[in-house]
């Protein structure tokens, strides 16, 4: 039983580490001003929008994420490039 609890704790810790390792915060937003520094509010053109880690100049994203052009909630239809880390799926 103790071994199972330990495994769960380790797994939880790993999940926490992965989740906190620079991945997008995924909080919903309508403007980048609602996001933290280094994040942009982006997503598909018709939403939903989340705070995503910005990756200008193709900066490397966390594991499981790729740097991709997204629609910015600041101007969803503008054809200006906004690069953010999104799930690689």
């Amino acid at each position, binding site marked *: 039983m103790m071994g199972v609890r330990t495994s769960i704790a380790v797994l939880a810790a790993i999940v926490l580490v992965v989740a906190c390792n620079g991945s997008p915060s995924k909080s919903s937003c*309508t*403007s*980048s*001003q609602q996001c933290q*520094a280094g994040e942009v*509010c*982006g*997503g*598909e*053109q*018709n*939403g939903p*929008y989340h705070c995503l880690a910005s990756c*200008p100049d193709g900066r490397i994203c966390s594991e499981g994420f790729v740097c*991709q*052009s*997204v*629609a*910015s*909630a*600041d*101007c*969803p*239809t*503008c*054809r*200006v*490039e*906004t690069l953010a880390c*999104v799930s690689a799926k």
Partner: protein
Amino acid sequence: MRLTFFILEHGSLKWQIKSLLTWEGIMSEHVRRMVACLRVSRLAVPHGRRTRRVSVFWQRLAFAATFALCLPSSCGGGDPPGDGFLFLSLDRTATRAGYTALDFRVTQVALFYDDVTLPPDDPVACRQCLHDCKHKHGSKQVQCTRACPCLNPCDTSGAAVVPLEVGLHVDLTATGRLNLASVATRPGKIQEVRVFVEDVSVTVDGTTITANPFEHPLKSIQVESSCKPRVDAQHKVHFGGVLRLVPVQGQDIVIQSDRQVAVVSPFDPNTDIKTLIDKQVKSCHFKGKKTCCKHGNDHAGYDPDSEWQAAAGDDQFDDEQTRRLEELGLLEHRCTGGKTSLPPHHCQQLHLLLFQLKSKYPLSLVPDEDAVLDDRIVVAFKSGVTRAQIQAIIAANGYSVIAYDETTNYYVLRLPTGTALQSAIQFFDGLSETAFDLPDTKVLMRQVFPCDPEFQNPGPLTEVNAPGAWATTTGSTHPVLADIDQGFDMNSADMIPNYFINAGELPAALTQDTAPADGFMDADFDQDGFITFRDLNAPGLTAAQLALLASVGLTQPVSPATLLAALSDGVDNDDFDSDPATFVDDLIGWDFVQNDNDPTGPGISTCTSAHGVGTSGIIAAVGATGGPPCASGLVAGVDWTARLLPIRNGGAFGVNQSTRSTSYLAIRYAVQMGSAAINASWGVTYNKGGGCGRAINNIGNKFDQLNSRLQQEGARLGLGNSILVVAAENCNQNDDSADTFDWPVELNNPNIVTTTSVSPANAGAVLAANRAYGPASIDISANGENHTMLGYGVTIAGCSGNSFTAPQVVGTIGLMIANNPALEGNPAALINRVLCNAIIVPALAGQVGGGGRVLEINQSVVNTNGCVP
């Protein structure tokens, strides 16, 4: 401040001065880089709420500024709370020196935390060491500085460097403030802060002098000379005249003069330099580099064929100058130079922060060796000389044909190996078959570069040869160029002169033609047929003209905001749509998301939030040459003199967000206001299946229904005589695909031009990453990458996307109409000229229409005859 420049001419060969002058400041012996670094010395993070005032370590400043540093940890009650600030203010010595303001741009801050060893800083030891070193080694100051324990304020070794982009203005009544809240990179005490500044300008007695001593933006100076030599009765040769120095960014300099002369003169960038150089009519034999050129004391008669002559007198070359001249090879020439006396000049010697421009960073004199092509000759044979005869002559003498026009017997011949051009000329001169012969030369590009400090050179607009077009026209007020976008900076100095004014909404006092009745509206002071902000803010208006403006509540300066405030009367005076309830007081444009007459944007300066500010700037930011100071703001657009109609249609997601229907209506409004071209740097992509992340994907069976109805909507969108220029999607998607609908790119309308981004936009163009393509859907390309675009009172660097390609085409259409007004109202002809004058890059053939078109603005503008379809 001292400027050294040279004028050379050798025989009839014009010399071209390349990279004429790099302005480089020498603030002190410590500063060696192209940035000025202010150093706030030895600051520990203060505890509690207090600031510490320190003096700027800025050696040999002509004035002093005072800093107060309040770091985040000590400024809990800051504004906003938690922020830290760097305060700057001029101190009293500046006042005495006549300085009234200081502007500069902070580009980075270096923080030395207390766990790193600071670079050496021992002023006493430094001075002593330098003194000893110079005594020992002469004036090899550079070596001494390196060897001595002198502080280099630009040394960031061990520091945490934080890039910034902050412009600061400091005057005697206010304090510049730099927010340091985001600067600190980690917890810990900071023992030193170094601030890196660029683009320094000062205001002296009310005159702003943008004598930027740094690399950017002034890279060269164009010298126009009216010097003519004159020999007087005493056989003295006089060189003199007015040398107008015009800073031009990155432009090669071609100087024509009748005699070679080097001039060393104090330099005031705002003043013509009038220099009269009296040379004794004597010459000297070369007796060593320094002896002759530096001192010029050995005179033995004037030699008009001398290679060059050096000016000396009071402004003799110092050792460093001489060293540089030697590096350039100038002193290798046989030198005949007389003692030169520079008469008193009217230019005031300007000590700007003790930046000295001297020949340590001199002109790079390079003869334009490429101007004459010495491997070929142009020969025109007499009419009647047959092709067979010509071929026989050519073959018998070792020439080969490079190109020819048989109708006119015009041949371009390659010279036999080892044959000098002069010999070839003599040969063909002696042939009875020759009508004339002459060397071939390269045609120098006629280009104009703006002085705007943030204009990118090289950059996207230089790649598409906007400077070439500007040699022909920089625009006119005739075309209305509309920009439908997220919001605009209606207070932008770059834009105000070019913003549209709807005369239909103006009071009759301004639009009537009564005083005098001359065929122009009374407030059309420049009589170009339109009332513009250029009219309302024109300098030197008569009392009657100013009274006319005052009669409707306008006083200079007139901005869009003051115009709206003074002239909004609540009545739809022009009522162009026969509905008096719509577009009331649309004096300067319209806001479709708030349905009012103020298209001002949200005021946030990012690539996305200031999107409309950026695109409108590319279309029609005012440009200028001359200065400094440059009279036209921060950047230069394609069309420097247009009437830009700002139409706001967009906001943040869910907040006044644009829709396709409001976009449709905005386009219709632009058409009805008579726009020659309409910019659309936006759109929406629908994908039947999956697509890129920013599109609307997986709409399945709905796609086909939507597709057909969108085309109906597009067909309904009457564009009249307007051209809609549309930026394609920022996705790696094929817009030609039947499963993708990039709206409005794919609308079937002959008045639509579509764009995508390449980098660079020249013969080596490559489609930029994540940009839509499709030769059937995309008409033309331009460089949309890494633009430094206008924001709200600032510029924003590194903005990329197809958004920044369409405005280049819109601006091009403006220039085309300015150069050929007959094209206005003829969208088919305009589109034809834009497309057929493009550069064709075969590598883009599968991505961009016409076999891979890349915008070429100059050809589009100057080729008034258009192209054969």
